[in-house]
């Protein structure tokens, strides 16, 4: 019984971008407003899961040829690297540095190394969620 999924697929293609943009917004809002790496990562996986529902596992893995297990490693490397980076400056582990910079496009922006740690969290959350879902989905 093969049903016609044309409406679901067309709508998913559009909605996917909206969800991803919202996830990125959540990720960057994390410092001053509710949000952050964890929610942003979950949202991003949610967008990919929507595509998985509309299409099938093979199509989506062709569309995003990412090994999510490697993504977990990259994310952990980001977090650990941010933690260990403090040791180079003779301060305790996980000490963060921050400051205000004048970037060419954004104007006056405050940058914080916690952002890099959050990037690690973001990648790990995407990797773990997608690994779980794909493993469950592929097992017959």
């Amino acid at each position, binding site marked *: 019984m*093969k*049903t*016609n999924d*044309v*409406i679901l*697929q*067309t*709508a998913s293609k559009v909605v996917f971008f909206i969800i991803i943009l919202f996830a990125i917004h959540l990720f960057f809002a994390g410092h001053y407003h509710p949000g952050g790496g964890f929610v942003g990562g979950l949202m991003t996986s949610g967008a990919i899961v929507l595509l998985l529902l509309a299409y099938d596992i093979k199509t989506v893995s062709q569309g995003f040829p990412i090994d999510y297990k490697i993504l977990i490693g990259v994310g952990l490397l980001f977090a650990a690297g941010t933690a260990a980076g403090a040791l180079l400056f003779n301060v305790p582990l996980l000490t963060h540095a921050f400051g205000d910079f004048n970037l060419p496009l954004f104007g006056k922006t405050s940058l914080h190394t916690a952002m890099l740690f959050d990037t690690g969290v973001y990648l790990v959350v995407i990797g773990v969620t997608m690994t779980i879902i794909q493993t469950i989905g592929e097992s017959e």
Partner: protein
Amino acid sequence: MAFQILLNFFLAFLWMFLQVSFSSSTFIVGYLLGLILMYGMRRFFKHEFYMRRVWAVIYLTLLFFKELILANVDVLKVILKPKLDIQPGIFALPTELKSDWEITLLANLITLTPGTLVIDISDDNKVLYVHAIDVPDVQDAIDGIKNSFEKAIMEVSR
């Protein structure tokens, strides 16, 4: 269509550089000037002037809001009637629309106007199966959808 919008953007940028003021208001003025120039040049383009299509999109939106209000009133009448004398039914609506997004748009417009609901699409994307709350005359219902929504979508994508 896409080429014309791109050209219009380039004209607006050119205007900004000619004025040596890089603000959004200058860009808008340049865009409007570009529109006027392109309207004058419309016979030289391969496709028709793109503002007609923009207007078609606006018209489709307005039509949708009109139909939404009218259909809601109709459903309200059905609900508030003491006697339930409706004739629900499922009919096949043959459609001439081709691409995926056109069919999605038509199906969503039919579903969002109360009283009718798309329940399935045939495998070759040629027939939509619509459930209606009250169809005394199937041909009327088909013609109504065809003349309003399908024509308006055709106007956009023609």
